[in-house]
């Protein structure tokens, strides 16, 4: 009988642990609903991929999302979990489908 194959858990990293040039998508957060709503309105939600322009555990994180640059304080960034991906471009998906993690 073949061994039961299970999908490996996708890697989830705090935004502060990404490196400059990494592309990633939001994979969860420990933010309040209010904070999540603000980030969603600014364009940062589970449907989007972004490019890291500056990541640091001590300083602000800067990400590029479509044509917008967002700066996030380290306290906020460390509460955003991301899934690194190798999408060709950062941006929102039309159908809301999440790109497959590589």
């Amino acid at each position, binding site marked *: 009988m073949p061994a039961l194959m299970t999908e490996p858990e996708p890697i989830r990293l705090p935004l502060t642990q990404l490196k*400059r040039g990494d592309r990633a998508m939001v994979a969860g957060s420990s*933010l*309040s609903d*209010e*904070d999540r*709503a*603000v*980030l*969603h*309105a*600014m*364009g940062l939600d589970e449907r989007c991929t972004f*490019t890291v*322009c*500056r990541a640091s555990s*001590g*300083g*602000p994180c*800067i990400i*590029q*999302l*479509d*044509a*917008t*640059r*967002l*700066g*996030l*304080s380290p*306290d*906020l960034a460390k509460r955003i979990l991301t899934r690194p991906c190798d999408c*060709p*471009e*950062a*941006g*929102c*998906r*039309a*159908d*809301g489908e999440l790109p497959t993690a590589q």
Partner: protein
Amino acid sequence: MSSGTTPRAAPPLRVAMVGNPNVGKTSLFNRLCGVRAKTANFPGSTVEARVGTCAADGAELQLVDLPGIYAIDLELPESKLCRDCLGGRLEGCQPDALLVVIDATNLTRGLRLFRSVATAARPVAVALTMTDLARTRGLSVDPARLSVALGVPCVAANGREGVGIEPLLAAIRGSRDVPATVVAASTRDAWIDETVLAIAGGPNSLGADTDRLTDRLDAAFTHPVLGGAVFVAAMAAIFFAIFRLAELPMTLIEEGFASLGALLSASLPEGALTSLLVDGIVGGLAGTVVFLPQICLLFFLLALLEDTGYLARAAFVMDRVMCRFGLPGQAFVPLLSSHACALPGIMSTRLIPDPKDRLATILVAPFMSCSARVGVYVLLVTLLFPDSGFLAGLAFAGCYALGAVAALLTAAIFRRTIIKGRSRPMVLELPPYRLPDVRAALLTTYDRAVVFLKNAGSVILAICVVMWWISAYPVAEAPAEAVALEARAVDVEASGDADGAGELRAEAETLAARAQQEQSFAGMIGGALQPVFAPLGLDERLTVAVMTSFIAREVFRSTITVLVGQGDSDDDAKVADELAQATRADGSRLFDPATTTGLLVFYVLAMQCLPTLAVTRRETGSWKWALLQLGWMSAVAYLLAWLARLIVIGLGGGA
């Protein structure tokens, strides 16, 4: 045939401008309205909108520049203001139509906002901005196709360069209700992406590649060390410019008011009305309006710096330090500005988006040592260390440090008690780096100057009149000694000694002024409160000087020199020498080291500036916060002054 009645002009079409932050909405507003605009504050709201008028095809349009929002349904003050405006719940601000401003390089976000306001049941037009930037990124966003997709007029426009303004006005006049089919379609999740795909080739073509130069500048400006150094240099340059460049216009304003006062004194008969005009109104306004050049320069330079895109990065640098005290990074600029004058410092807290952060910053800003305190510091530090320039300099610097520490600790206490609650997380859109728009900066400066002058001409003027009245009434009889001196002056003058007569008259005037100070309502209040200030070592004269300087700190020097009988002088060293000799009724030194130290601490920390209280009330929308500021600062000042005096007495400096 005329009906005999004049037809009433149709009311102007009122158009609310809605858009995301940094999409060029205010540039369009400034281009359309220019100086025909004013800032409008609304009851219960800490955010403001600007209202202006412009002409379109001979008809008048009234534009309302609402604050930039990311979504209309967020629980943020700016979103709430927009909701109230669009819902017709804002008094005097019910729009007839909407102008939605969309950034061509960020269609997704713009369309999300369009979708949320499309249901407002008002005619809509769309202005598409940043099309030049979109083109440089290889995008072609066609306004005609967007217009078809949205079912409302849409034109490309650029407020900074004045491009597309006439077509925009025509589009506003032709604004239409969003078709029901579009409203229905826009409720689907995929509508935004489909629309973007149809008019701009899809979201993935929206220039997501990062810009190497911007990356490098961001890395430098947000670096813990380099970013801090750049920030210190930028702020030092601004403050150097404010102090240097404002010097001449401030002198001219002072001299202008002095000449006006002299002219009124010379041309009006002596009496209460002339005194009210010269000492109350002209003198009071001079003390406030003199700061106008500093305010204009500060707002002009900050507007330029903000427009370059740098200030958003600097906020992150300072956030690391300020957040430990419950303040956001954006609070640094207002606190630094308060070193020039707390009035512009408090006004510039509008840069802070979170209302609680903003309130905390307003409440602590007056702790920073403003330029009006400098004269008092110089006098008291010279009295403390007459023979050591080094120690005097150290004490002077210590005053600035004490004020800053008190501000930060107060902020930390307030954010854990009366302004409890989490701040909005520090997430900012970082606008692209660009050359600043001087015209927009000038309009911002003009707007702030008008707000300041209106405040000076209303609340502050009323305060000045009240303070004049309690200092001028009841009118004291000239003391017998002053009358005798005046008589001697007449004799001396008759003998040909004009200089001697002048000296006698000056002495007589000082005695008369002292009698007036002591017998006025202000003096009576000072006398009654002397027991309260006795633990600080203040006698009746010092108490009167402290109480009168609640009008403005700089009054301390002139009051105390008059009260101890020296007469006011511009020479700091001479005044300090004379005050150092002053004694109490028991013969001990009036300005002993302990009392002087306590007094210095009191002046660093006390809220002694009525115009600042008026501006706090205006910016917080409530006297409650202004009175809390006054009470807290006075209590902290009193307590620490008392402690400082006790410590110096303990060290042997009590006499």
